[in-house]
C-alpha cells in the first residue's frame, strides 16, 4: 500500500543555522568613505554596531528555505479543498509571464506614457470583470477581497450621507456569511444586524423583512452562500433591500460556482468585490498576497476609490477625478502581479470561462453525493438541493457516536496526503467540513478523497483512538493549540523563545 509521508527535516530556526558570521550578498565598495561621511552628519538616530540578524551564506539560506518549502503543502502537490477559498490550480504560463522584467522593474511613478502596456492590461481586466459581474465599472486597487468589502461598505456609507440619510447605520448580514463581512461593515462604522438561515439554506425572508428599516444602509450577501446553496429568493431580497432604501453588496468569494451563468449585477447587487486569487487563478502564496477587485453600478460609480485606469481613445491613463470618491484604499494601483495572472487566465479561457462553473459544480455535487452516505455524516441545510461551488457536511453524528470530531477527521485526511477542508465553519453547522474542490480536481482525485473519508469514518466506528492520534505522516504530529495560546506561553519571536528556553 502506498503511504503518504511529508518531508520532516527537523530544520532549526534560521537564527540557529549558522555559527560563524557570513553573508549571502556581495556588495561593491565603490563609494568608500562617502557613506561614513554622510552618516556622521546624523545626530541621535544612527545605529551603533550591526543590526541583530542571523548571518548565513547563500547556500545555507537556500537549503534552509528549500527544506521549509518541503514542509509546506499547496495545490501543486495535491487537493486543497478548503471551502470558500477556491484553491484551484494556478496555470504555470500565468506565473511565468507575470514575472516578466517589464513588470518587475516598473516603478509606480513612471510616466503614464511609459507604462501603456501595463495600463492596458489593467484597463482590459477592469472591463472583463465588469462584464463578468454585470457592473458598470471595476477597480483592482483593493489588495484583497476584504479590502474590497471595506471599500464597498464605505461607498454605501457615503452614498447615504450624501443623500442626507446618515441615520442609515445598519448593515444586514446573514449568519452564514464569511466573518470578513461583518468585520468590514464594522470597520466602515456600521452596526451589524444578523439574519438567520432557513432550513432550505436560504436567508430567512421573514426575518429579513423584519430587520429592514429606515436605518438599513444595505445588506452584504454571498451568493451562492457558504453552504454552497444559491439564494433562491435573491430577486425578492433585492426588492426588499432596495425598497427599504438600502443597497445590496455582493461578496464575490463564492463566484466560482456560477461564473458566466449568473451575474451579481443581474441579480440586483449594486456593488461587488471579487477575489482574483480565488476565482481567477492567482495563487494564494501561503496566505497572500492576493488581489481584490471592487465593482459597482449606477449612482455608486461616483464613489469608486481612486485612481482607476481609463482610456481616452488614444492612451491609457490613471483617472483621479471621480466626483465623490471614497479616496485611496491603498497606495499606488493595487496588487498588479496577481492581477496580471488573472488577466492571463481570463484571456486564455475567453468565453469558455463558464466551463469553470459547470465543472466546479459537477465536481461539488459528485463528491457530495459520495460523501453524504458515509456513516456519521449529515447534511444540515437544503436537503435535496444541488450545491454550487462548495458544500458543508456535519460530523456531529460521528462525534456523538464515536467521539471523533470534525477536527480529528481533518487531521486524518492530512495523513492521507490530502489537505483538509475548512472546518468548523460556517458556524451554523456543528462539526462542519466545508468542502470546495473547484473545477481543477480530477475525478480520480475526487474518488481518492471519498476513499479517504470512507476509511476514516469506518475507522472511527471501529477504533476511534486511531483517528484521534492523527496526523502521524505530516512534518509534525498534532500540535497543541491550547498550549500555544495560553497567555503565559505566547511566544511570537525567536528572542522570546530564547528567554523561554532559558527559563525566564
Amino acid at each position, binding site marked *: 500500500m502506498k503511504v503518504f509521508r511529508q518531508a520532516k527535516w527537523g530544520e532549526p530556526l534560521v537564527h540557529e543555522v549558522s555559527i560563524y558570521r557570513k553573508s549571502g*550578498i556581495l556588495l561593491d565598495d565603490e563609494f568608500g568613505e562617502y557613506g561614513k561621511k554622510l552618516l556622521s552628519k*546624523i545626530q541621535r538616530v544612527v545605529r551603533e554596531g550591526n543590526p541583530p540578524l542571523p548571518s548565513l551564506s547563500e547556500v545555507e539560506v537556500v537549503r534552509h528555505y528549500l527544506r521549509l518549502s518541503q514542509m509546506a503543502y499547496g495545490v501543486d502537490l495535491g487537493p486543497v479543498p478548503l471551502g470558500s477559498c477556491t484553491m484551484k490550480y494556478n496555470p504555470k504560463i500565468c506565473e511565468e509571464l507575470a514575472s516578466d522584467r517589464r513588470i518587475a522593474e*516598473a516603478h509606480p511613478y513612471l510616466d503614464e506614457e511609459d507604462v501603456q502596456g501595463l495600463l492596458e492590461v489593467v484597463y482590459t481586466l477592469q472591463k472583463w470583470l465588469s462584464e463578468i459581474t454585470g457592473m458598470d465599472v471595476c477597480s483592482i486597487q483593493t489588495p484583497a477581497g476584504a479590502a474590497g468589502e471595506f471599500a464597498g461598505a464605505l461607498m454605501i456609507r457615503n452614498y447615504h450621507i450624501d443623500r442626507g440619510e446618515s441615520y442609515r447605520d445598519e448593515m444586514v448580514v446573514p449568519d452564514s456569511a464569511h466573518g470578513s463581512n461583518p468585520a468590514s461593515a464594522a470597520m466602515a462604522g456600521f452596526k451589524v444586524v444578523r439574519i438567520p438561515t432557513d432550513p432550505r439554506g436560504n436567508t430567512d425572508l421573514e426575518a429579513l423583512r423584519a430587520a429592514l428599516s429606515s436605518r438599513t444602509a444595505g445588506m452584504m450577501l454571498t451568493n451562492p452562500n457558504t453552504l454552497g446553496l444559491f439564494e433562491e429568493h435573491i430577486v425578492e431580497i433585492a426588492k426588499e433591500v432596495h425598497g427599504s432604501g438600502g443597497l445590496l453588496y455582493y461578496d464575490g468569494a463564492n463566484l466560482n460556482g456560477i461564473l458566466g451563468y449568473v451575474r451579481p449585477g443581474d441579480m440586483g447587487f449594486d456593488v461587488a468585490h471579487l477575489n482574483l486569487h480565488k476565482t481567477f487563478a492567482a495563487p494564494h502564496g501561503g496566505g*497572500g498576497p492576493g488581489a481584490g477587485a471592487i465593482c459597482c453600478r449606477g449612482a455608486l460609480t461616483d464613489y469608486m476609490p481612486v485612481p482607476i485606469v481609463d482610456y481616452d481613445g488614444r492612451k491609457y491613463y490613471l483617472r483621479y477625478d471621480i466626483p465623490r470618491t471614497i479616496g485611496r484604499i491603498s497606495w499606488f494601483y493595487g496588487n498588479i*502581479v496577481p492581477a496580471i495572472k488573472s488577466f492571463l487566465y481570463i484571456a486564455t479561457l475567453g468565453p469558455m470561462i463558464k466551463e469553470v462553473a459547470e465543472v466546479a459544480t459537477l465536481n461539488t455535487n459528485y463528491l457530495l453525493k459520495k460523501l453524504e452516505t458515509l456513516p456519521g455524516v449529515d447534511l444540515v441545510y437544503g436537503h435535496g438541493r444541488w450545491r454550487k461551488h462548495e458544500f458543508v457536511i456535519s460530523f456531529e453524528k460521528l462525534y456523538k457516536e464515536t467521539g471523533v470530531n470534525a477536527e480529528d477527521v481533518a487531521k486524518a485526511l492530512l495523513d492521507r496526503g490530502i489537505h483538509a477542508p475548512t472546518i468548523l465553519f460556517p458556524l451554523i453547522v456543528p462539526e462542519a467540513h466545508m468542502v470546495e474542490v473547484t473545477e481543477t480536481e480530477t475525478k480520480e482525485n475526487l474518488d481518492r478523497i471519498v476513499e479517504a473519508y470512507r476509511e476514516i469514518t469506518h475507522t472511527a466506528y471501529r477504533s476511534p483512538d486511531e483517528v484521534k492520534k492523527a496526523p502521524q505522516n505530516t512534518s509534525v504530529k498534532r500540535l497543541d493549540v491550547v498550549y500555544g495560546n495560553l497567555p503565559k506561553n505566547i511566544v511570537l519571536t525567536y528572542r522570546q523563545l530564547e528567554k523561554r528556553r532559558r527559563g525566564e
Partner: protein
Amino acid sequence: MRVGSASSSLTYFRVGIVVIGDYVPHPWIPNSYIKDVLMKELGISSVLDLFNDVPGELILKRDLNVGYGSPLAEYKLVRHFDEIMSKNRYFFKVPPFLGGGMCYHYVPAVIRHIANRSEFYTAYTPYQPEMSQGITQALFEYQSMMADLYGVDIVNASMYNGSTALAEAVRLSVRVTGRKHVVVSRSVHPELAEVVRTWSEPVGISIHRVGYDKETGQVDLAEVEDYLRKLKPAAVIVQTPNFFGIVEQELSRISDVAHESGSLMIVYQDPILLGVLEAPGKLGADIVVGDTSSVGSGLNFGGPTAGVLGIKDAEGRLLRQLPGRLIGYTKTLDGSEEGFIMVLQTREQHIRRERATSNITTNSSLEAIKSAVYLALLGSEGLRKLGEAIAGRTQYLLERLSEAGMVPAFERGVYLREVLLRHPDIARIRSYLKSQGVYIGPLVGRFYQDLSDCCLVCVTERHSREDIDVLVELIKQLLGGG
C-alpha cells in the same frame, strides 16, 4: 466548438430558452473531458439541471464577452502578452533615479528561486499547521527578524502593504487609547496619509496635519509638541527618512512628548536603512510600520509587497488589539516535538466577526517570506553595508550636485537615499533628463503646492558612480555649466 480559428462543429444544448455554447474541454479543467461521466453519476442530462434553483430570468443567455473571442492556445497567449508588454518603456540608459516610497532596489535571484517554490506559492493560509510547518516557521522567522530590526517586541505575520499597515496602526492606536484625534506629519508620504484618511474617517477619527521645518525638512517640532499637548491625540505619525528623503533626528524627543500626553508614537520606516539607522523601537516608537518593497518584493508597478506592523508592548495592552495573523511557538500534544501555529485568532474576523480587530483575511505571507529570505541573506553586516552603500551614493550625489550649482530643497536637512531637488525649471530639467534616458521623480508639486519647483532623486545600491556622473553632467549641460 471554438479554439482559435480551428473550425470544428459547434454544438449546443438547449434547455427552455437558454442556449449555451458547448466548448471543447480545456486542459486546466480536467473533468471537462468527462462531463458526461459526472452527469451520469448525478443522474442529470444537462449541467443546467444543477442550476434549477436559479430564477430563470437571472441565467445569462449568452457567453460572457471576455478574453479575445475564443480560448487562446498558450503560444498565442505568450505572443499576445508580449505585444502588450512591448508598449511599456523598460530599457533605460541608467537605472532610474525614481523614488517616492519605492526605489530601484535589487532583488537577488535567491529570493525569486525560493518564492517560486510551488509548495510555498500554491499553499493557503496555514489552517492545518501540521502540514504547513514550512510556512509557519518561515513566518515566525519573519516576525522575529523584523521585530529585532525595528526594536519592538512583536511584529505580525504581515499586512497588505505599508499603506494599509499604517492605516491599521492608526486604528489600533485609537482602540488602545480610546481617543479620536491623530496627528500626521505633512512629511509623511502623501499617498500613505491619504490611505490613513480613508480608513480612519468613517469611525470618527480626526486627522490633523503638522508641518515641516522649512530649513531642515524635518517635522516641525514646536508644532507637533503643541498639537500633542493641546489635542492629546491617540497617536502621532512620523516617517523617517520622510517623503523628502530627510532623516528625522528628533524621534526620541517627539516620543517623549507624545508619551507625556498619553499618546502613542507611530514611526513609518523603510526596513532597508535599518542597518545604519537606529531601530525606531529604541527611540520611543510604540508602533512601527514599514513595507517590504525594498527588501525582496521589488517594484511591480507598486505591488504586491508586504506591510510590516510591529508593537512594543510590555503590558500586553496593544497585543490584544493588534490586527492580522500571528504565528506562535507551540508543542505537539504528546510534548515530543516543537512547531508553529497561528495564535490569538480570537482577535480575527473569522471568529470575532464584527468585533474583530480588523477584517484582514488574506495578507501578504509570500512577500513577508521573501523579505525574511533577503534579510537572512544580507545578514547583520550585510544590511549595515547596504545602508552604507546607499548613504555613500547619497553623499556623492549631493556633492556632485552642489558642484553643478544645484542645492536640495532643505539645505540643513540630512538626506538619505532620496534627495529633494529644487529648481525653478525643475519640470524642464526632468523632461530633458528623460529624453536622455535618465529618469528622476516624482515631481512633488502633484502632492505639495508649496513644493511645485521640487523633484525627488533617489539612489540605491544599483547606481554606480558613472550613473550619478551622467545625471549630474546632463544637468550641467542643460543649465549651461556650473
